């Protein structure tokens, strides 16, 4: 039987919570999620059943047969050797051309959106030019590309050409050694190759690549004319050389992409005419052939075109030219013009609303089987996922009107129906947003998908305006353009559109780990529990700190040291990316790069320097406990605390209980919240905001967690919040520590709402009562909660709606729970694909009930 929430007394009456769908009364809690998937067509049901998932758990791929391909690395290496002596940007374009001209193209049964990025749909490509160490990592695994000896040779070939070899020498080896330990800060991007990008999809769909080629060729012709002007002026004339090279590279890249897409068209035709026996599929293959001949060469004319052109653009920018995590775009706005043509006007590729829903379901399944050649470390920190894929919906349009439309609804409906963990999505919450769409948002959340995660529309728009003022070429987002934003990855907002989008992860995503930094601060910068190394400057031993302020200052210095290093590594990485890892295709589809003849990695118009403090709340709760028990109440000395920590609390159980019971974040406790607010505003955001990055803007915190709350938790010793060494840390940038938010959901909101200065992009994870969300009052309560959240000016929130009973049942019999989805951090995962350590952190999160006080605070009418 399903669990039904108990009745409560509210505003003088008894409110009962019967399930909205009475049929669910007969479904046991232990299997609810297995009853929720409803693929809208037989085709998507089949595609989901045969989906080639690439999820990884604890660094291992969950499905058999998944492995790295060798084709891409072979072809990029062949091109690199053959292009020696040419300008680097041309070499990059020729590298892409060689891959696209010679690679294997793939067509799978039943699919309509086609295209893959490796030589077999069970494989994924590797990128030795980005990170040879990642290839070395695969070479010693059971997923090694074959023949492995060739793969080893390729990895070795790239060592002297790598960003790591070039950038590393500008750093003190001691600093680099600290970074490679990934305990106080992340490893440098020039070693990991981890990246994210926001492709300007709009130009591909609106212009088509033939038009982009024409534009580049016209620019080259004009440049040559300018260079030939008399009298010769070298101060201006020589600038054209780089520009001409960039435009030529763009032409090479665009032509290669067109030719590659048309190879797919030819494959469809060949299969239709020579292999396919089903007349209906044969006809469909010929239609797909027609679409793939026209796009992305030509502008899209209908919704099918748009899905296909978008997919190709994604593959090139995220998976073939170079690796980049993410799926950043504002999908409803991008597709709406084509939805209108196909669904409303029916003037090209006519279809019904349900056909559009099916298209979205098919797109979700393409993403679900997309493989990313990430190193083991990056597979471990996204447990249960294949990679991070996040797009954005909703919000307001440029003119302030509601950005929700029928395409938004089709996307949400498909997402609810097909029930896949990828791609995740963000919904920009604006009071003006229509209720019809918000109800679909609710249904996705209620059904346990963990997304959409919700971002505050106005805060995001203001952030775009704020960053625009630092634009190095005075061409940041206009007030109108500031409305066109989407999450770049889990949390940080960034512009979308025809130009000014984020092109590389040097602009954001540097991870720093405050809990570990606090740990080493207590011991003069020395890490006794994990690395046995000096991990930062010598800032004194905590037992000598006479005041809490001395500890605060030492922590601030340690944090500043790590933060400077992380951002310096990012910017040095960017410096070399713009010289040896140019992205001519991405440049070709960006209006700014096209106009100015500058590579996408080099040009910056809109700063977007969001970086990730992860494990902040463990550090924050620890500071509260230290202040209360050592400096205010003087119940213990710092020396005693350090002894207890060194013993991992063993023999100090009473003391641990006191530290564990000290006030915790998320309970609207003024004592704790004052310290924690100062910690966020003075240290976490305050130190960051003094830094100026490559793009000329300050960097700001986008506190989140991914799976690093587990990874770094395991590397962080016992902490003064009462936590044992090795236990997971907090699962979001501003989320209460698991199980410690005990005063109800609105107390959490009140705490979080107190942090306002220097930041507004912190992840808030909440787990809401499943029986209340599935009751007849579920939407009204959630909607009131969201209004309260909005009024408190909080930037983000996301939800788990899943029962402990079902998660525990899945731990016992995983094979029966393939559709059980949970929100981990900035991504969702199939519960059974997460290692037990991670599963237990989800179970430990407090399932928030709504009491009468919460309902009153939210002013909900029931």
């Amino acid at each position, binding site marked *: 039987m399903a669990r039904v929430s108990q009745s409560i007394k509210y505003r003088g009456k008894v409110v009962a919570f019967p399930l909205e769908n009475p049929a669910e009364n007969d479904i046991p809690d232990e299997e609810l999620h297995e009853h929720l998937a409803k693929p809208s067509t037989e085709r998507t049901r089949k595609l989901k059943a045969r989906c080639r998932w690439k999820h990884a758990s604890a660094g291992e791929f969950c499905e058999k047969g998944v492995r790295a391909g060798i084709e891409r690395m072979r072809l990029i290496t062949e091109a690199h050797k053959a292009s020696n002596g040419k300008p680097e940007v041309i070499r990059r374009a020729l590298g892409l051309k060689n891959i696209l001209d010679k690679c294997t*193209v793939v*067509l*799978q*049964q039943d699919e309509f959106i086609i295209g893959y990025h490796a030589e077999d*749909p069970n494989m994924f490509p590797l990128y030795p030019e980005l990170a040879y160490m990642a290839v070395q990592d695969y070479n010693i695994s059971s997923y090694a590309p074959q023949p492995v000896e060739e793969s080893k040779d390729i990895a070795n070939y790239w060592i002297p050409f790598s960003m790591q070899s070039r950038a590393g020498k500008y750093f003190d080896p001691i600093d680099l050694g600290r970074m490679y330990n990934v305990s106080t800060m992340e490893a440098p991007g020039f070693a990991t190759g981890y990246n994210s990008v926001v492709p300007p999809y709009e130009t591909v769909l609106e212009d088509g690549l033939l038009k982009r080629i024409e534009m580049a060729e016209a620019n080259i012709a004009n440049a040559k004319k300018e260079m030939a002007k008399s009298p010769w002026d070298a101060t201006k004339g020589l600038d054209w050389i780089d520009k001409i090279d960039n435009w030529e590279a763009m032409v090479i890249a665009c032509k290669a992409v067109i030719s590659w897409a048309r190879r797919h068209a*030819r*494959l469809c035709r060949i299969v239709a005419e020579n*292999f396919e026996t089903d007349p209906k599929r044969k006809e469909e293959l010929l239609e797909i052939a027609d679409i793939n001949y026209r796009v992305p060469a030509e502008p899209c004319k209908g919704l099918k075109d748009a899905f296909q052109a978008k997919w190709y653009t994604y593959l090139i920018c995220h998976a073939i030219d170079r690796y980049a995590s993410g799926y950043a775009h504002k999908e409803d706005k991008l597709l709406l013009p084509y939805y209108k043509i196909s669904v409303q006007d029916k003037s090209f590729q006519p279809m019904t609303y349900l056909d559009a829903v099916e298209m979205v379901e098919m797109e979700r399944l393409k993403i679900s089987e997309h493989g990313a050649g990430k190193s083991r470390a990056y597979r471990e920190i996204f447990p249960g996922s294949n990679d991070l894929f996040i797009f954005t919906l909703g919000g307001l349009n440029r003119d302030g009107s509601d950005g929700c439309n029928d395409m938004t609804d089709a996307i949400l409906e498909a997402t609810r129906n097909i029930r896949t963990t990828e791609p995740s999505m963000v919904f920009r919450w604006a009071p003006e947003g229509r209720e019809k769409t918000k109800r679909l948002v609710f249904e996705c959340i209620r059904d346990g998908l963990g997304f959409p995660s919700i971002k505050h529309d106005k805060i995001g728009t203001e952030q775009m305006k704020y960053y625009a003022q630092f634009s190095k070429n005075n061409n940041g987002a206009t007030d109108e353009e500031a409305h066109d934003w989407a999450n770049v990855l889990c949390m940080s907002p960034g512009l979308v559109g025809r130009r000014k989008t984020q092109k590389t992860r040097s602009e954001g995503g540097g991870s720093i780990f405050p809990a570990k930094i606090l740990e080493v601060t207590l011991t003069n910068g020395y890490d006794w529990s994990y690395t046995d190394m000096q991990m930062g400057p010598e800032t004194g031993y905590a037992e000598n700190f006479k005041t809490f302020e001395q500890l605060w200052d030492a922590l601030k210095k340690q944090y500043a040291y790590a933060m400077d290093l992380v951002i310096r590594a990012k910017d040095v990485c960017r410096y070399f990316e713009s010289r040896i890892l140019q992205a001519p295709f991405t440049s070709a589809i960006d209006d700014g790069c096209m106009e100015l003849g500058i590579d996408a990695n080099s040009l910056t118009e809109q700063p977007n320097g969001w970086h990730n403090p992860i494990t902040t709340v463990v550090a924050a709760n620890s500071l509260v406990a230290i202040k209360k028990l050592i400096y205010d109440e003087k119940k213990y000395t710092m020396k005693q605390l350090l002894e207890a920590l060194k013993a991992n609390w063993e023999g100090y159980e009473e003391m641990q209980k006191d530290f564990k019971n000290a006030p915790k974040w998320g309970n609207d406790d003024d004592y704790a919240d004052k310290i924690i607010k100062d910690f966020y505003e003075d240290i976490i955001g305050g130190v960051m905001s003094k830094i100026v990055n490559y793009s000329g803007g300050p960097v700001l915190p986008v506190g989140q967690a991914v799976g690093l709350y587990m990874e770094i938790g395991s590397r962080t010793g016992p902490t003064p919040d009462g936590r044992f060494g090795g236990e997971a840390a907090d699962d979001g940038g501003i989320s209460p520590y698991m199980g410690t938010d005990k005063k109800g959901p609105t107390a959490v909101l009140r705490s979080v709402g107190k942090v306002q200065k220097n930041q507004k992009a912190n992840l808030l994870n909440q787990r809401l009562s499943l029986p209340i969300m599935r009751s007849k009052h579920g939407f009204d309560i959630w909607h009131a909660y969201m209004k309260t959240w909005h009024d408190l000016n909080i930037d983000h929130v996301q939800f788990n709606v899943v029962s402990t009973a079902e998660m525990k049942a899945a731990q016992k019999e995983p094979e029966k729970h393939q559709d059980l989805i949970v929100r981990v951090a900035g991504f969702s995962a199939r519960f059974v694909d997460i290692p037990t350590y991670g599963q237990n952190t989800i179970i430990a999160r407090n399932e928030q009930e709504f009491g009468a006080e919460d309902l009153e605070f939210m002013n909900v009418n029931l």
Partner: protein
Amino acid sequence: MSTCEHCGFFFLTPKDADDYEAGKGDCVRPKKDEKGQYWLSKPTFGPNEACPEFHKK
């Protein structure tokens, strides 16, 4: 010696294709595994020595 051009999986590139080259074609091979059927297409040249999957026209 068998060559690609005599293989049933070889399809000559049309003269109006972007990637046309004399003798070039697509090697289109059907594949099947527990997840279903798929096709792989890779460029090759007619006179090339055929691979072990040669399938006479």
